[in-house]
């Protein structure tokens, strides 16, 4: 039975697609009433998928189009968790806004399938197909609140700019194919290793990297991020902040360390430039932001800078630091967005930093959790975020990237300003009217778990994470 192993290899993706199709039928026949059930089933399916990914074997299938290895498995797990949590966090917001439709979880499921496919891509074709599946689904949910002007604007912007980025990737892929004669990752790696890189292939690589940089919102391809983060419904923003970022970053790592490994010196230069620019932009541009969603957009731009620095190191240690960083990033963002989703007065979302004034007196536990997240993002020991940054810097220093590391540290000092400002507003400013109480159960649950993870869980139990990340990173270096 030729091909069965292929099926097994892509099992999680196939499972997810089947569930999505089934739920679509279910929803179509049951109507809007089914949304509760569908959302929970989707989340459950995503968690089952996590189990499938964890249990699944490594290997290459579909004639070299599809690959599973510990690295992309790890990234898939992170993306799946991000999607699942985003779905369950959406309920309150979306139903209050009247857009709690059964298509919503299903679209997220399909986007997640796209992420998994692109993470598993072993060919530029698979890469593009996965990427487009993910992107198209995300364009839809960005504009999901379609009678809201800002939401539709965000969706449209994301769509148009995403199309530009897709064009860049496609154009780059065609250039690479034209000069290398193959689209297979393995083939590319072989061809590019043969001689000095041809200008065409290098330019193709630049285009592909640029397109992927758009997806991770790295400078100078980040411009969409603040507008889309602000405009999109907040739970969608929470999703954007985690799952697609993780998937795109995993893809970027896979591309740089896989087919284009022979051009590592060239890609490193781009990565460093982009990383430093992102760190600096994320730090400086956020200083004047009042809207907390925009602030988180800049925060993610900055965070991507640090991750790219780890990637730029190009060593096993560097990749490990990327995996660890993304894990922590996922948790911190989910926790922070859970808090943001709870910022609600009389059913209206409060989105400015001033709305957090005196939070410590009205909602001490929420303020404490937020304090943990902000300190963690600012990279203050002994919170998790510190170790994320520490690993990245150690890897970068070991790879000889002194200047970029120094600039990264400087940028993190500047970035600390706006994280700490939130803490200052919460703890030192006079209280304003309290938020609606009680906090939704899901949100407080996510906040609590995330806060405990940030401190002290990660501090105490970091070795399994490091070991997994080590194994994941090691997979990319096996030949």
């Amino acid at each position, binding site marked *: 039975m030729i091909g069965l192993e292929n099926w097994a290899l892509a099992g999680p993706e196939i499972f997810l697609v089947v569930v999505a199709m089934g739920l679509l039928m279910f929803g179509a026949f049951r109507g809007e009433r089914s949304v509760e059930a569908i959302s929970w089933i989707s989340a459950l399916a995503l968690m089952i998928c996590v189990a499938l990914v964890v249990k699944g074997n490594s290997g290459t299938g579909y004639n070299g189009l599809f690959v599973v290895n510990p690295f992309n498995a790890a990234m898939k797990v992170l993306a799946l968790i991000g999607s699942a949590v985003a779905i369950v966090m959406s309920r309150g917001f979306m139903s209050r806004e009247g857009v709690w439709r059964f298509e919503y979880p299903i679209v997220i499921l399909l986007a997640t399938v796209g992420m998994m496919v692109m993470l598993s891509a072993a060919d530029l074709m698979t890469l593009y197909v996965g990427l487009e599946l993910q992107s198209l689904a995300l364009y839809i949910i960005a504009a999901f609140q379609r009678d809201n002007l800002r939401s539709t604007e965000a969706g*449209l*912007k994301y769509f*148009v*700019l995403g199309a*530009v*980025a897709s064009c*860049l990737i496609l154009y780059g892929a065609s250039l690479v194919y034209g000069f290398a004669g193959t689209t297979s990752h393995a083939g590319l790696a072989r061809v590019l290793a043969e001689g000095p890189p041809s*200008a065409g292939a*290098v*330019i193709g690589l*630049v*285009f592909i*990297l*640029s397109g992927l940089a*758009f997806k991770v919102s790295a*400078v*100078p*391809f980040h*411009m*969409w991020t*603040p*507008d889309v983060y602000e405009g999109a419904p907040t739970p969608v923003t929470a999703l954007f902040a985690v799952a697609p970022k993780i998937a795109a970053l995993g893809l970027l790592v896979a591309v740089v360390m896989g087919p284009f490994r022979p051009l590592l010196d*060239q890609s490193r*230069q*781009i990565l460093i*430039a982009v990383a430093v620019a992102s760190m600096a*932009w994320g730090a*400086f*541009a*956020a*200083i*004047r*932001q009042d809207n907390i969603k925009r602030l988180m957009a800049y925060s993610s731009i900055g965070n991507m800078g640090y991750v790219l620095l780890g990637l730029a190191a190009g060593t096993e240690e560097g990749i490990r630091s990327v995996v660890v960083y993304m894990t922590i990033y996922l948790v911190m963002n989910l926790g922070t967005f859970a808090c943001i989703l709870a910022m609600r007065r009389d059913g209206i979302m409060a989105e400015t930093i001033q709305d957090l004034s005196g939070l410590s007196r009205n909602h001490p536990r929420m303020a404490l959790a937020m304090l943990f997240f902000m300190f963690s993002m600012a990279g203050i020991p002994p919170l998790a975020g510190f170790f994320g940054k520490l690993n990245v810097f150690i890897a970068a220093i070991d790879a000889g990237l002194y200047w970029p590391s120094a600039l990264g540290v400087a940028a993190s000092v*500047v970035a600390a*300003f706006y994280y700490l400002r939130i803490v200052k507003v919460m703890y030192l400013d006079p209280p304003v009217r309290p938020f609606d109480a009680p906090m939704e159960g899901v949100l407080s649950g996510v906040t609590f778990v995330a806060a405990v993870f940030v401190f002290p869980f990660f501090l105490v139990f970091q070795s399994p994470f490091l070991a997994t990340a080590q194994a994941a990173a090691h997979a990319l270096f096996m030949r």
Partner: protein
Amino acid sequence: MDLAVKLIVFLPLLAAFVAGFFGRAIGDRGAQVVTTGALLVAAALSWFVFFKVGFGGAGGTARLATWIVSGTFDVAWALRIDTLTAVMLIVVTTVSSMVHLYAVGYMADDKSVPRFMAYLSLFTFAMLMLVTADNLVQMFFGWEGVGLASYLLIGFWYDRPSANAAAIKAFVVNRVGDFGFALGIFALYLLTGSVQFDAIFKAAPELAKITFPLLGCAVPALTACCLLLFIGAMGKSAQLGLHTWLPDAMEGPTPVSALIHAATMVTAGVFMVARCSPLFEYSQVALDVVTVVGASTAIFAATVGLTQYDIKRVIAYSTCSQLGYMFFALGVSAYPAGMFHLMTHAFFKALLFLGAGSVIHAMHHEQDMRHMGGLKDKIPQTYWLMWIGTLALAGIGIPGIGGFAGFHSKDVILESAYAAHTAVGGYAFWLGIVAAFLTAFYSCRLMFLTFHGKPHDKHHYDHAHESPPSMLIPLYVLAAGAIVAGFLGEAWFVGHHEKEFWRASILILPDHHALHGAHDVPTWVKWSPLVVAVAGIGLAWWFYVKSSFGLPKMMVDAFPAVHRFFFKKWYFDELYDLMFVRPSFWLGRQLWKKGDIGIIDGVGPNGLAAGSQRLAGVLGRTQSGYLYHYAFAMLIGVALLVTWYMLSRGR
């Protein structure tokens, strides 16, 4: 013996600790009892040690602990006990215990009695550490300790701006002197490899022969060291040039003025030079400098004292002047004479200060003599006790028979200066004679203005009252000292038993015979101090009691320039203000406003912050919201990266 000295030194520290840290627990009375009791015990032990050492020939060094060991640098905590130390011990502990007792009454109404008592005891400890030091570093420890205590006590009433200013002034001016002292210690360590007195003194004859190059000149090593040490002494002992802090230090409570700024701390410089006599003896230049500075200070301070109206300031200038006497005695190698005057002066000057304190107490903290007058009937005990101090200060006594304490010590100083038969000795002698005349005049002027004549402030006068016993007892004790100290001490300090009394604690080279010559000076030299003193008293009486037509005012009107010059203290403060204070403030302000705020803050924290804000604004503006701007930025980005690639590929 060792135990007694240790107790003497550390009892005050213990008392200061108890009163300072547990003052609230034990209360005002407890703090007074603890500190005064500790000091009285220390004083009794000091007299015991003094007799054992001075007349019994005991002495030695009690090593307490190792302090610093670093390479060849070895400093120990050790108590050096010889006659010089023993003399200082009795002076310090006696005056200090009397002042402690006096402070019980004087400070009774103050809000923070325990703090005051603790400071006083802390000061006493530091002073004892200074006088028992076995090495220069330990002495410096005590030196700085008394400086600290002096600072704290001058600024004791810290809610008065003038007291704070005076405290800072005292500290800063002393810092100049201390800088010289510290340099002297460094130089001696550099040259001899030790800071221990015996080792340094042993090396002194060799040091006298060597020079070191400085700015192209060959500087005699020993002279340089001695002069540096003397700069330290000048600061602490308020000698001309570094004296400006002493009058201002009168802002402190009067017991402080009596203890620190009359009897003990200000004499630390005299003690230090005497202690280092084995060094100074080998440097004629240094001795001459000491003589000239001392004699100049004596006359300078006396002239200023003529014109001041604040009762404490007059006594402060008198202190300054008397310290000048001590220094020129040291300068002509009559160290015993200097130390003798130190001892007698401690008694009568403390008496005068405490008496003045009693007057101030009676007048409800009025210090201006123009508002006093006629007080002799109101506070008769204080009046008579202060006369004893005044006569002792003026040096009244009959040559060959005896007199007040100041008479014995001042006469031997002047005779030594004359007997030195040198130019600087002559300078010192004649200035000393003139200063003696002025001293008698201004001290009697003080008495007449305060106690005689008509009361100028009816209100204060009516409420004036005699002081309580706790304040009068110390006055009686000190008055006894002011009467008999000179008479009893002369033979041992400067007379026939001088050699067996001082033994090895003071070195005088055989060819420096001023002290011995003092006994054989012509009769007119012996009588002249008495003559000028009596003349001064008589003139003061004529000016302020006899003449009813405003003779002092006529004098002032007749010589306005001279009066203003004296009254303005020879314009030292104004000059320093112009030369040092204002340039320092200017420099400080420049460094602060332009250097720190402008450059460091401006470019550093604030500049970076402002820059970040600006950058944030610029970056924020790029976020225009227009789709085509964003797409354009992406394409520019790609173009830039491709270009960079193509360019870097060429390399």
